[in-house]
Structures are given as C-alpha cells and as structure tokens.
C-alpha cells in the first residue's frame, strides 16, 4: 500500500481540484482530507457519513468556582491574559487559553482542572466515486494539529487495509507548520501543486525546505502555467535543481471553477480533455513509486 500526499504551501493553487481528479482516476484508493481548516473535498465527493467520532485534542483550563479561594495566583501567572475576575469570581476565556497548564500547577486550592478539549469530529464516509473518504471538521477557533492529521491518516490506513486498497491519497494541510509535517509523515510520494505567481513560487520554496527533510520522492504540478511563462520557467529551474520530478503543466482554465461549481471533478465535466491528462499524470506518479 502506498501513501501519496498532495500539498501546496499557498492556498488557492488548485490542490483540492487535483485531489478530486485523482480520486476519480486512481483505482483502489482511500481518500484522506487533512486540509481540515478548509476541508473542501467533500463538496465534490459528496460523502455519506458511515461513522463519526468526536475528536479531543489539547487541554484548556477550567476553574471550579466552589473550590476557588480567589487568591489571584492563576491570573498573575497567565501569560496569555486568559484569566480575569469580576469581584471574586475567576474565569478562563477559552479563546485566549493556550492550555499550558501553568495555572493548574500553581493553584494552591487545586481548583483548576485541564479537561481535554473536544475540538472536532472525524468521519469515515462512502463517496459517489466508490472510494472511501476520511475527513474531519474542526470547531470554532480550534487549530489543526499533528494529532488530528495523524488520526485522519490512521483511519484512512485502517480502511485501506480492511478493504484491500492499494493507495491512500491525502489532501494535505496548508502552511509550513506541525500539521504539514504530520501529513508528510509516512508518505511514499509528495505531489506539490503550485502556480506561477511571485507568491506561489516563494511559498513553494518555503514548503519544499520542509519536505526535503523527509527524503520523500516528490513531483510537481504547475497549475495555471500559461499565466506567467517567465515564472513557470523559474519554477522548472527550481524543480531541476532540487531533483523534483516535473509532472505536468496545467493551463489557466475556467474548467477548474466550473467543475467546482457543478460539484464535480475536472475529469467528469470534460472527460476527453482531462481524463487522458490525469491518467498520464497518474502513470508518471506510479513510475516514480516503483
């Protein structure tokens, strides 16, 4: 079983469109959506939820008013200004609390507990493409974490083993932080989706610095390649230097937004145009995998 992760660094480069097209093409795959901040893959795959599970991550402080002696210690030590009091009632503002637990350590009355936070839900679903989708939804202000990404990937792997699938396709997390590291962990191949804009190039370089640490073979799709041929050439130079396989140039094409609007993948809205293309992309990925 092989795990392939799609990432981009910058938002809006077409990462999810690529994931949806591959979901249609790749035989015997389980999809995993780890872009939980803006999880959009379900809008194309239209999952029917089979199982859902509450997800707990991190802690936040809670003050038991019955035990609190109003000594002010917790408010004094909190560096995040998350504790305040009105008369002698002390309260934690959960939006500011970072769950460091300092107040819990220092409280002389043991009035502060650190309950695990229910931050979202994790789902395993059937999709109209026939493949299973593992996805998650976060609560307000909750952060994507390595833990949630690991959970989504683990469920996907379980599902793949149980149903005898050959591939796990992961729609990875954006940015360059802990969730991306977790998306990359254990992967067999990375697909980088970028666009030829100054911001796209700069974000690609930043995310590659991170990816390169993990020694995972990588390929790159340049989306909207004809938008700025000069930067596209710069991106290709960068790929050459870094030993990243150039998979394909995709055109600046209204089909991308058209497909999203229809709730379909590119391959569905215009098969002659897109199916062969993504078939070829998939073939070159398979070649890299073996």
């Amino acid at each position, binding site marked *: 079983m092989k795990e392939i992760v799609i990432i981009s660094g910058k938002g809006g480069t077409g990462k999810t469109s690529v994931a949806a097209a591959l979901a249609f093409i790749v035989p015997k795959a389980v999809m995993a959506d780890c872009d939980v901040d803006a999880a959009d893959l379900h809008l194309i795959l239209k999952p029917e939820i089979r199982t859902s599970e509450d997800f707990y991550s*991190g802690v936040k402080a809670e003050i038991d008013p019955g035990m609190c002696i109003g000594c002010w210690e917790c408010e004094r030590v909190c560096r995040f200004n998350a504790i305040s009091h009105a008369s002698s009632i002390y309260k934690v503002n959960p939006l500011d609390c970072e769950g460091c637990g300092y107040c819990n350590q220092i409280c002389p009355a043991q009035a502060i507990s650190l309950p695990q936070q229910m931050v979202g839900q994790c789902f395993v679903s059937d999709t109209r493409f026939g493949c299973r989708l593992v996805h998650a939804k976060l609560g307000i202000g909750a952060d994507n974490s*390595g833990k949630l990404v690991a959970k989504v990937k683990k469920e996907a792997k379980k599902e793949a083993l149980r149903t005898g699938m050959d591939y796990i396709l992961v729609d990875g997390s954006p940015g360059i932080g802990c969730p991306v590291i977790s998306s990359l962990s254990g992967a067999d191949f990375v697909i980088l989706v970028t666009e030829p804009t100054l911001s796209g190039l700069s974000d690609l370089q930043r995310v590659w610095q991170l990816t390169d640490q993990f*020694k995972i073979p990588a390929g790159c799709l340049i989306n909207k390649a004809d938008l700025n041929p000069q930067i596209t050439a710069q991106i290709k130079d960068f790929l050459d230097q870094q030993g990243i396989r150039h998979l394909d140039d995709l055109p600046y094409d209204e089909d991308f937004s058209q497909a999203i609007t229809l709730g379909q993948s590119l391959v569905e809205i215009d098969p002659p145009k897109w199916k062969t293309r993504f078939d070829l992309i998939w073939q070159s990925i398979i070649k890299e995998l073996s």
Partner: protein
Amino acid sequence: MKIAFTSTGTDWDAKIDPRFGRTDFILFYDEDTEEISTLDNREIVNVAHGAGPKTAQHIFEHAPDILITGNGPGGNAAAILATMHLKIYTGAGGMTVREAYDALKNNQLPEGV
C-alpha cells in the same frame, strides 16, 4: 550492537512503521544477546504537538547504536537524536523488521537524515 526499529508490531515479521514520531512500537534487537524487546509507543496518539521529540526521548532512554525507520524524523526529533551516538538509516518503509535488518547488513539502506 543494539538496533532500534520503528515498527507496527512486536516481532521479526512486523512491518516497519514508516512514521517516526507516531510509530506504534519501537522494537529493539540486541545483536550480542540476540534478544528482542519492544516499547509500546501507542500512547503517543494522545499527544497533540511534539510527538517526534517524545518518541526520540524514548529512544534516547534505551540508547541503541542504530535506528532504522521509514521517512526519518523531523527537525525537533533529529535535534534530540543528534545528541546520541546513533546511526540513523531510513527508507525501510514497507519492509518487515527482518527484511530491514537484512537490508542493513547488505548495506542497502540509506544512512543519515
């Protein structure tokens, strides 16, 4: 030589866990005594951030000479492992522990992180 493997199980036929920080088990093989021992790392699932460093700490405590894993540790974990006299071999994802051990003996695993 004491060799550590990130693994999904507790014997020679278990698969190497390609993940470092969130590996299910760490399997140790002592070549001198030919003994196998395992450390259950599955509690790591409850760690939101810093799984890599925590696992690296477990490895530190057992002081192996060699570590065999899949993709290799991230930056924070690597910093901890760098404080030990430890050779790290990656690229064993998909193999069993036995196959990975044989690959090591045949110099087929890439060294370093």
